[in-house]
Protein backbone atom coordinates (compact mmCIF):
# COMPACT_ATOMS: atom_id res chain seq x y z
CA UNK A 1 0.00 0.00 0.00
CA UNK A 2 1.38 3.44 -0.91
CA UNK A 3 1.86 6.12 1.76
CA UNK A 4 -0.99 8.16 0.23
CA UNK A 5 -3.39 5.23 0.48
CA UNK A 6 -2.33 4.62 4.09
CA UNK A 7 -3.23 8.21 5.01
CA UNK A 8 -6.57 7.97 3.27
CA UNK A 9 -7.36 4.73 5.04
CA UNK A 10 -7.15 6.45 8.45
CA UNK A 11 -9.50 9.32 7.46
CA UNK A 12 -13.25 9.37 7.99
CA UNK A 13 -15.40 9.87 4.83
CA UNK A 14 -16.04 13.53 5.90
CA UNK A 15 -12.33 14.19 6.35
CA UNK A 16 -11.61 12.62 2.98
CA UNK A 17 -14.16 14.91 1.31
CA UNK A 18 -12.65 17.93 3.05
CA UNK A 19 -9.08 17.07 2.09
CA UNK A 20 -10.20 16.49 -1.50
CA UNK A 21 -11.89 19.92 -1.71
CA UNK A 22 -10.09 22.08 -4.20
CA UNK A 23 -8.64 25.32 -2.88
CA UNK A 24 -8.13 27.04 -6.23
CA UNK A 25 -10.26 30.02 -5.22
CA UNK A 26 -8.81 33.11 -3.54
CA UNK A 27 -10.50 35.03 -0.75
CA UNK A 28 -9.36 38.67 -1.06
CA UNK A 29 -8.98 40.92 1.99
CA UNK A 30 -7.37 43.94 0.40
CA UNK A 31 -4.92 45.33 -2.16
CA UNK A 32 -1.61 46.97 -1.30
CA UNK A 33 1.80 47.87 -2.69
CA UNK A 34 3.91 44.72 -2.83
CA UNK A 35 6.70 44.49 -0.28
CA UNK A 36 8.37 41.10 -0.03
CA UNK A 37 9.77 41.90 3.43
CA UNK A 38 6.34 42.62 4.90
CA UNK A 39 4.63 39.28 4.93
CA UNK A 40 4.01 38.82 8.65
CA UNK A 41 0.23 38.63 8.69
CA UNK A 42 -2.00 36.86 11.21
CA UNK A 43 -4.15 33.84 10.44
CA UNK A 44 -7.23 34.78 8.50
CA UNK A 45 -10.84 33.60 8.49
CA UNK A 46 -11.14 30.06 9.93
CA UNK A 47 -7.39 30.06 10.68
CA UNK A 48 -6.40 30.15 6.99
CA UNK A 49 -2.86 31.16 6.07
CA UNK A 50 -2.86 34.68 4.66
CA UNK A 51 -0.23 35.74 2.13
CA UNK A 52 0.65 38.41 -0.41
CA UNK A 53 -0.11 37.49 -4.02
CA UNK A 54 1.97 39.91 -6.12
CA UNK A 55 1.40 41.37 -9.56
CA UNK A 56 4.34 43.59 -10.48
CA UNK A 57 4.53 46.27 -7.74
CA UNK A 58 1.06 45.73 -6.26
CA UNK A 59 -0.40 42.71 -4.47
CA UNK A 60 -3.59 41.16 -3.20
CA UNK A 61 -3.72 39.94 0.42
CA UNK A 62 -5.45 36.57 0.18
CA UNK A 63 -6.04 33.09 1.53
CA UNK A 64 -6.71 29.94 -0.48
CA UNK A 65 -10.19 28.49 -0.27
CA UNK A 66 -12.73 26.44 -2.14
CA UNK A 67 -15.07 28.20 -4.57
CA UNK A 68 -17.78 28.60 -2.01
CA UNK A 69 -18.96 31.68 -0.12
CA UNK A 70 -18.65 31.90 3.65
CA UNK A 71 -22.16 31.76 5.00
CA UNK A 72 -23.70 30.65 8.26
CA UNK A 73 -26.84 30.91 10.33
CA UNK A 74 -24.73 31.26 13.48
CA UNK A 75 -24.44 34.98 14.21
CA UNK A 76 -21.52 34.74 16.61
CA UNK A 77 -19.58 32.77 13.98
CA UNK A 78 -20.50 35.33 11.32
CA UNK A 79 -19.42 38.16 13.61
CA UNK A 80 -16.13 36.36 14.27
CA UNK A 81 -15.49 36.05 10.49
CA UNK A 82 -16.16 39.74 9.96
CA UNK A 83 -13.80 40.67 12.79
CA UNK A 84 -11.13 38.32 11.37
CA UNK A 85 -11.62 39.97 7.95
CA UNK A 86 -11.00 43.37 9.54
CA UNK A 87 -8.05 42.08 11.62
CA UNK A 88 -6.19 41.05 8.49
CA UNK A 89 -6.97 44.33 6.74
CA UNK A 90 -5.87 46.35 9.78
CA UNK A 91 -2.70 44.28 10.11
CA UNK A 92 -1.94 44.71 6.39
CA UNK A 93 -2.53 48.45 6.77
CA UNK A 94 -0.01 48.50 9.60
CA UNK A 95 2.55 46.45 7.64
CA UNK A 96 2.16 48.00 4.17
CA UNK A 97 1.25 51.57 5.14
CA UNK A 98 -1.69 51.85 2.74
CA UNK A 99 -4.28 49.36 1.47
CA UNK A 100 -7.63 49.26 -0.37
CA UNK A 101 -10.05 47.09 1.62
CA UNK A 102 -12.46 44.64 0.00
CA UNK A 103 -15.99 43.95 1.14
CA UNK A 104 -16.49 40.77 3.17
CA UNK A 105 -16.70 37.47 1.22
CA UNK A 106 -15.12 38.56 -2.07
CA UNK A 107 -13.83 35.31 -3.57
CA UNK A 108 -12.28 34.86 -7.02
CA UNK A 109 -12.92 31.43 -8.52
CA UNK A 110 -9.32 31.04 -9.74
CA UNK A 111 -5.99 32.69 -8.93
CA UNK A 112 -5.52 33.55 -12.62
CA UNK A 113 -8.73 35.54 -12.59
CA UNK A 114 -7.57 37.56 -9.60
CA UNK A 115 -4.23 38.24 -11.30
CA UNK A 116 -6.17 39.33 -14.40
CA UNK A 117 -8.20 41.72 -12.22
CA UNK A 118 -4.97 43.20 -10.81
CA UNK A 119 -3.53 43.51 -14.32
CA UNK A 120 -6.61 45.22 -15.76
CA UNK A 121 -7.05 47.63 -12.84
CA UNK A 122 -3.42 48.25 -11.95
CA UNK A 123 -3.38 51.97 -12.75
CA UNK A 124 -6.69 52.64 -11.01
CA UNK A 125 -5.57 50.69 -7.94
CA UNK A 126 -2.26 52.53 -7.77
CA UNK A 127 -4.01 55.86 -8.07
CA UNK A 128 -6.38 54.88 -5.27
CA UNK A 129 -3.48 53.73 -3.05
CA UNK A 130 -1.83 57.11 -3.56
CA UNK A 131 -5.06 58.89 -2.66
CA UNK A 132 -5.50 56.86 0.57
CA UNK A 133 -1.89 57.09 1.77
CA UNK A 134 -1.43 58.49 5.28
CA UNK A 135 -5.18 58.68 5.92
CA UNK A 136 -7.67 56.83 8.12
CA UNK A 137 -11.44 56.61 8.10
CA UNK A 138 -13.60 57.71 11.03
CA UNK A 139 -17.30 57.24 11.67
CA UNK A 140 -19.09 60.37 12.93
CA UNK A 141 -22.74 60.24 13.95
CA UNK A 142 -24.41 63.37 15.32
CA UNK A 143 -27.69 63.15 17.23
CA UNK A 144 -30.02 65.94 18.34
CA UNK A 145 -31.63 65.89 21.75
CA UNK A 146 -35.23 66.36 22.81
CA UNK A 147 -34.25 69.70 24.39
CA UNK A 148 -34.06 71.27 20.91
CA UNK A 149 -37.67 70.35 20.10
CA UNK A 150 -38.89 71.24 23.60
CA UNK A 151 -37.53 74.77 23.37
CA UNK A 152 -39.35 75.42 20.08
CA UNK A 153 -42.58 73.92 21.43
CA UNK A 154 -42.37 76.08 24.56
CA UNK A 155 -41.91 79.26 22.56
CA UNK A 156 -44.72 78.44 20.15
CA UNK A 157 -47.11 77.44 22.95
CA UNK A 158 -46.68 80.89 24.50
CA UNK A 159 -47.66 82.44 21.16
CA UNK A 160 -50.65 80.11 20.87
CA UNK A 161 -51.93 80.98 24.35
CA UNK A 162 -51.72 84.67 23.53
CA UNK A 163 -53.71 84.23 20.28
CA UNK A 164 -56.31 81.98 21.96
CA UNK A 165 -57.12 84.69 24.50
CA UNK A 166 -57.88 87.04 21.64
CA UNK A 167 -60.06 84.74 19.52
CA UNK A 168 -61.39 81.49 21.06
CA UNK A 169 -63.29 80.35 17.92
CA UNK A 170 -60.17 79.97 15.85
CA UNK A 171 -58.26 77.73 18.31
CA UNK A 172 -58.41 74.49 16.24
CA UNK A 173 -56.96 76.09 13.12
CA UNK A 174 -54.43 78.01 15.16
CA UNK A 175 -53.27 74.82 16.83
CA UNK A 176 -52.78 73.12 13.44
CA UNK A 177 -50.92 76.16 12.17
CA UNK A 178 -48.65 76.21 15.21
CA UNK A 179 -47.93 72.48 14.90
CA UNK A 180 -46.83 73.02 11.31
CA UNK A 181 -44.70 75.97 12.40
CA UNK A 182 -43.02 73.85 15.08
CA UNK A 183 -42.21 71.19 12.48
CA UNK A 184 -40.87 73.74 10.01
CA UNK A 185 -38.77 75.51 12.61
CA UNK A 186 -37.24 72.24 13.83
CA UNK A 187 -36.40 71.30 10.22
CA UNK A 188 -34.86 74.73 9.59
CA UNK A 189 -32.80 74.59 12.76
CA UNK A 190 -31.59 71.06 11.96
CA UNK A 191 -30.70 72.05 8.41
CA UNK A 192 -28.74 75.03 9.69
CA UNK A 193 -26.87 72.90 12.23
CA UNK A 194 -26.20 70.15 9.68
CA UNK A 195 -24.55 72.69 7.37
CA UNK A 196 -22.59 74.22 10.23
CA UNK A 197 -21.28 70.81 11.44
CA UNK A 198 -20.54 69.63 7.90
CA UNK A 199 -18.45 72.76 7.33
CA UNK A 200 -16.66 72.33 10.67
CA UNK A 201 -15.76 68.68 9.96
CA UNK A 202 -14.98 69.01 6.24
CA UNK A 203 -11.87 71.10 6.94
CA UNK A 204 -10.23 67.88 8.23
CA UNK A 205 -10.86 65.71 5.17
CA UNK A 206 -13.22 64.17 2.65
CA UNK A 207 -16.74 63.37 3.88
CA UNK A 208 -19.25 60.80 2.68
CA UNK A 209 -22.71 61.40 4.11
CA UNK A 210 -24.67 58.15 4.50
CA UNK A 211 -28.36 57.59 5.12
CA UNK A 212 -29.82 58.40 8.52
CA UNK A 213 -30.43 55.04 10.21
CA UNK A 214 -31.44 55.89 13.74
CA UNK A 215 -34.02 58.00 15.52
CA UNK A 216 -32.96 61.61 16.20
CA UNK A 217 -29.84 61.25 14.08
CA UNK A 218 -28.85 64.46 12.34
CA UNK A 219 -25.77 63.29 10.45
CA UNK A 220 -24.10 60.00 9.55
CA UNK A 221 -20.66 60.77 8.16
CA UNK A 222 -17.64 58.73 7.13
CA UNK A 223 -14.61 60.97 7.08
CA UNK A 224 -11.21 60.29 5.50
CA UNK A 225 -8.66 62.20 7.55
CA UNK A 226 -4.85 62.55 7.41
CA UNK A 227 -3.43 60.78 10.48
CA UNK A 228 -1.80 64.04 11.59
CA UNK A 229 -5.22 65.74 11.88
CA UNK A 230 -6.93 63.04 13.97
CA UNK A 231 -6.44 64.83 17.29
CA UNK A 232 -7.76 68.13 15.93
CA UNK A 233 -10.82 66.37 14.54
CA UNK A 234 -11.43 64.84 17.99
CA UNK A 235 -11.23 68.30 19.61
CA UNK A 236 -13.67 69.76 17.11
CA UNK A 237 -16.15 66.91 17.65
CA UNK A 238 -15.72 67.34 21.41
CA UNK A 239 -16.97 70.92 21.03
CA UNK A 240 -20.11 69.73 19.21
CA UNK A 241 -20.61 67.02 21.83
CA UNK A 242 -20.57 69.66 24.59
CA UNK A 243 -23.45 71.60 23.00
CA UNK A 244 -26.71 71.37 24.93
CA UNK A 245 -28.80 70.02 22.05
CA UNK A 246 -26.39 67.59 20.37
CA UNK A 247 -24.31 64.49 21.03
CA UNK A 248 -21.60 62.82 18.91
CA UNK A 249 -20.67 59.17 18.36
CA UNK A 250 -17.07 59.03 17.10
CA UNK A 251 -15.52 55.70 15.96
CA UNK A 252 -12.29 54.55 14.35
CA UNK A 253 -9.64 54.70 13.13
CA UNK A 254 -10.85 52.30 10.42
CA UNK A 255 -9.21 51.14 7.22
CA UNK A 256 -10.73 53.26 4.41
CA UNK A 257 -13.75 50.99 3.73
CA UNK A 258 -16.05 53.82 2.64
CA UNK A 259 -13.49 55.31 0.29
CA UNK A 260 -12.42 52.13 -1.50
CA UNK A 261 -14.59 52.21 -4.60
CA UNK A 262 -12.65 52.50 -7.83
CA UNK A 263 -13.95 55.28 -10.01
CA UNK A 264 -13.52 55.53 -13.74
CA UNK A 265 -12.16 58.84 -14.95
CA UNK A 266 -15.46 59.55 -16.72
CA UNK A 267 -17.40 58.93 -13.49
CA UNK A 268 -15.03 61.13 -11.53
CA UNK A 269 -15.43 64.00 -14.01
CA UNK A 270 -19.19 63.64 -13.91
CA UNK A 271 -19.27 63.71 -10.07
Amino acid at each position, binding site marked *: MSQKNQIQATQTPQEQTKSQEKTNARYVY*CIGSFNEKKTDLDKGIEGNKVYLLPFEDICAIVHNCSAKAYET*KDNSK*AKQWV*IQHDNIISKALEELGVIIPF*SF*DTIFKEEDQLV*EFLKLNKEKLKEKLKQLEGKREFGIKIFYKESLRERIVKEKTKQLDAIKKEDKGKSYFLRKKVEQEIFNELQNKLKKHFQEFYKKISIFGEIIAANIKEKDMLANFSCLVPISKTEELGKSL*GEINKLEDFSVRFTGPWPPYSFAQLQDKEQKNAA
Partner: protein
Amino acid sequence: MLPERNTKVGVVDLLDRVLDKGIVISADVIISFADMPLIGLNLRAALACIDKMLDYGLMTDWGEAQKAVEKEKEVITPIKITS
Protein backbone atom coordinates in the same frame (compact mmCIF):
# COMPACT_ATOMS: atom_id res chain seq x y z
CA MET B 1 -12.95 63.58 22.25
CA LEU B 2 -11.35 60.19 21.51
CA PRO B 3 -12.69 57.76 18.88
CA GLU B 4 -14.09 54.39 20.00
CA ARG B 5 -13.02 51.19 18.30
CA ASN B 6 -13.24 48.09 20.46
CA THR B 7 -16.52 48.98 22.13
CA LYS B 8 -20.08 47.88 21.30
CA VAL B 9 -20.61 51.11 19.37
CA GLY B 10 -17.33 50.49 17.53
CA VAL B 11 -18.28 46.91 16.59
CA VAL B 12 -21.61 48.06 15.14
CA ASP B 13 -19.80 50.64 13.04
CA LEU B 14 -17.23 48.05 11.95
CA LEU B 15 -19.86 45.53 10.80
CA ASP B 16 -21.58 48.27 8.87
CA ARG B 17 -18.35 49.04 7.06
CA VAL B 18 -17.11 45.50 6.38
CA LEU B 19 -20.49 44.31 5.01
CA ASP B 20 -21.60 47.36 3.10
CA LYS B 21 -18.40 48.98 1.96
CA GLY B 22 -14.92 48.19 0.67
CA ILE B 23 -14.42 47.30 -2.99
CA VAL B 24 -17.45 45.44 -4.33
CA ILE B 25 -16.84 43.77 -7.65
CA SER B 26 -19.53 42.80 -10.09
CA ALA B 27 -17.96 40.21 -12.33
CA ASP B 28 -18.54 36.60 -13.29
CA VAL B 29 -15.13 35.61 -11.93
CA ILE B 30 -16.42 36.27 -8.42
CA ILE B 31 -18.45 33.82 -6.39
CA SER B 32 -21.80 35.53 -6.39
CA PHE B 33 -24.88 35.04 -4.29
CA ALA B 34 -27.71 34.32 -6.64
CA ASP B 35 -29.76 33.08 -3.71
CA MET B 36 -30.29 34.56 -0.29
CA PRO B 37 -26.96 35.21 1.42
CA LEU B 38 -27.53 33.89 4.91
CA ILE B 39 -24.62 35.67 6.45
CA GLY B 40 -25.81 38.97 5.08
CA LEU B 41 -29.34 38.35 6.22
CA ASN B 42 -28.41 37.45 9.76
CA LEU B 43 -25.78 40.09 10.27
CA ARG B 44 -27.93 42.82 8.80
CA ALA B 45 -30.76 41.81 11.10
CA ALA B 46 -28.42 41.71 14.08
CA LEU B 47 -27.17 45.15 13.22
CA ALA B 48 -30.67 46.56 13.06
CA CYS B 49 -31.37 45.14 16.51
CA ILE B 50 -28.16 46.42 18.03
CA ASP B 51 -28.81 49.90 16.72
CA LYS B 52 -32.18 49.88 18.46
CA MET B 53 -30.70 48.49 21.65
CA LEU B 54 -28.03 51.15 21.70
CA ASP B 55 -30.76 53.74 21.30
CA TYR B 56 -32.52 52.57 24.42
CA GLY B 57 -29.44 51.49 26.36
CA LEU B 58 -30.51 47.84 26.44
CA MET B 59 -27.53 46.30 24.69
CA THR B 60 -25.92 43.82 27.03
CA ASP B 61 -24.17 41.35 24.77
CA TRP B 62 -24.21 39.79 21.34
CA GLY B 63 -26.42 36.95 22.58
CA GLU B 64 -29.18 39.44 23.32
CA ALA B 65 -29.02 40.70 19.78
CA GLN B 66 -29.22 37.15 18.45
CA LYS B 67 -32.51 36.47 20.24
CA ALA B 68 -34.08 39.55 18.74
CA VAL B 69 -32.77 38.64 15.28
CA GLU B 70 -34.93 35.53 15.15
CA LYS B 71 -38.05 37.65 15.46
CA GLU B 72 -37.10 40.24 12.88
CA LYS B 73 -35.08 38.52 10.21
CA GLU B 74 -38.00 37.90 7.83
CA VAL B 75 -38.55 41.60 7.30
CA ILE B 76 -34.93 42.56 6.75
CA THR B 77 -33.74 42.90 3.17
CA PRO B 78 -30.65 40.76 2.63
CA ILE B 79 -27.53 42.45 1.40
CA LYS B 80 -25.78 41.22 -1.69
CA ILE B 81 -22.02 41.05 -1.56
CA THR B 82 -21.83 41.11 -5.34
CA SER B 83 -24.42 41.90 -7.94
